[in-house]
């Protein structure tokens, strides 16, 4: 009797497993075949030598990583380290700017009647649905030498005459913040929407006001949203390609352009692959760091699947 029941359960669970594979299989296999396998190949290439055309050839070598660290036939050069630090700095400032702008915007939307909030949110997200190149060259025009913004900068002596604010580091940071602002606002809005206002009232009853009230009642409650926002902004901003390429010029080069050059203009695939590994290491460290932070601060409410 009990054996028969067990087999029936086994048949049922076998059927479930079959259904799981029939439905989820194609999608998962697609991603594995066309993304996981290719990125594994890319990472593998970092351990090969480069031939005269920059293609990977045997023997295996650590030379690509020496190049990343700045060693070449001409000796040591800090160029790459400067570029990595600059990428971290520019992505960091862009993330900070979006976080600082997001708080007033999110609470502004929440202070409006519930019926128009979706529309206000839509108008935040809408620009990010246009193509990235269009969005970015729009800033080339806005910050270029001919635009009024640059005249103001001339008057303030922020930039030399006949030069605009773009290309340059200011333009890159602005472009990154503009591109990724919605990725900060949406998760922050989601957590601010669920805010428990009785805690704010309690704080007010205890004579807290202004920034102190915000810091002790609002900020801790919105922290999970802020942390996801930081991840969604900092990671793509650090590895961005279009913005530094169009708004950067030589002096604001970021790691993305450096990597892309090894596959387009001056091919050196193994070196490019080694640079990619460095970029992924930073990305991974950032992710793990924020995950640990989120868990510690007790805001683990993500993970939809």
């Amino acid at each position, binding site marked *: 009797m009990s054996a028969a029941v067990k087999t029936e359960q086994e048949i049922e669970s076998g059927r479930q497993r079959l259904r799981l594979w029939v439905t*989820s299989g194609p999608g998962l296999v697609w991603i594995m075949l066309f993304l996981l396998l290719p990125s594994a190949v890319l990472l593998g290439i970092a351990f090969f030598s480069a031939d005269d055309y920059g293609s990977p050839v045997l023997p295996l070598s650590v030379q690509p990583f020496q190049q990343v660290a700045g060693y070449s036939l001409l000796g040591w050069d800090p160029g790459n380290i400067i570029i990595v630090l600059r990428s971290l700095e520019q992505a960091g400032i862009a993330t900070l700017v979006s976080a600082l702008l997001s708080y007033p915007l999110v609470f502004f939307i929440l202070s409006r009647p519930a019926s128009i909030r979706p529309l206000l949110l839509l108008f935040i997200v809408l620009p990010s649905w246009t193509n990235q190149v269009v969005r970015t060259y729009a800033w080339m025009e806005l910050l270029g030498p001919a635009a009024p913004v640059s005249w103001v900068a001339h008057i303030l002596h922020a930039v030399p005459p006949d030069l605009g604010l773009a290309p340059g580091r200011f333009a890159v940071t602005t472009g990154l913040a503009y591109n990724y602002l919605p990725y900060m606002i949406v998760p922050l809005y989601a957590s601010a929407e669920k805010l428990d206002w009785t805690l704010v009232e309690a704080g007010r009853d205890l004579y807290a006001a202004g920034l102190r009230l915000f810091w002790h009642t609002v900020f801790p409650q919105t922290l999970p949203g802020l942390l996801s926002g930081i991840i969604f902004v900092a990671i793509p901003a650090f590895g961005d390609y279009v913005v530094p390429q169009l708004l950067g010029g030589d002096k604001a080069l970021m790691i993305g352009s450096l990597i892309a050059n090894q596959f387009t203009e001056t091919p050196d695939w193994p070196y490019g692959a080694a640079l990619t590994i460095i970029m992924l290491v930073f990305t991974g460290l950032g992710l793990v760091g924020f995950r640990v932070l989120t868990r510690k601060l007790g805001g683990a409410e993500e993970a939809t699947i």
Partner: protein
Amino acid sequence: MIPRGVRYALSGISWPVYALLYTPLALVAYYSFSPAPNQTGHSLYAYGQLMHDAAVFTALRRSLILALGSAATSTALGTLLGYGLCRFRARNATGVLANIPSLIIYTPIIMPSLVFGISELIFFNFVHSATGFLGAGLQTMIIAHITFQVPYVALTVYARLAGLDPYLFDAAQDLYADGIKSFLYLIIPVVQPAIIGGFLLGITLSIDDFTISFFTAGPGSVTLPIYIYSAIARKGITPEVNAIGTLMIGTIVVLALVHFFITRHRERAGQFAARGNIA
């Protein structure tokens, strides 16, 4: 809840930010109406030039094929994936194996698009030189676009299914619906908004993308964003580039608003109907 003084401060910061979000886009539109050479004022000159530019129309056609083709495929794959994971994955599964599907789904979302694009470039290059298949072109771009859209569709469908009453599936089973029947007559209608949403999201992601397209494109598969990018690299931002940009921005804004108001209208109608039933 928010004191009046703070409200004013919030408005004072927020409206300028809203204006700033649209200033660059408005500037593109403004410059697109620049006059013909040696003339002053505003004109539709740049748009007239576009009409005679066969390359732009070819690029536009390719962009549409890319967006629609990839979104349709990723909607099919993603819907099945989201459905399968929600319905058939054992809820109490633990251990390393249980997390693998989620890890696979989140990789395309988390991976920087530059790494994504370059991985595809190298992979297609190897496959092509080994087998002769998958030479860089529209086909490789479509494959890459499907790959980054599938997770978003799957998550949209998953979220919709996870919000449903689980007894719905039992009820279907009690009425002798087998797997395929319940998929066709229960799941598809119920998940339909998520499927449409996923499809539109796929199109949006495809239109928004430049980096992945750039690295998977071949010489004969210039799409609109790549056309703009190389035009800027060659001769800077011309009125024609501004005209294309304006049309792209305009299309997206109109589509987004139409979609927004249609779904809102339907939601309200739904609420109204529900209220009517109770009464």
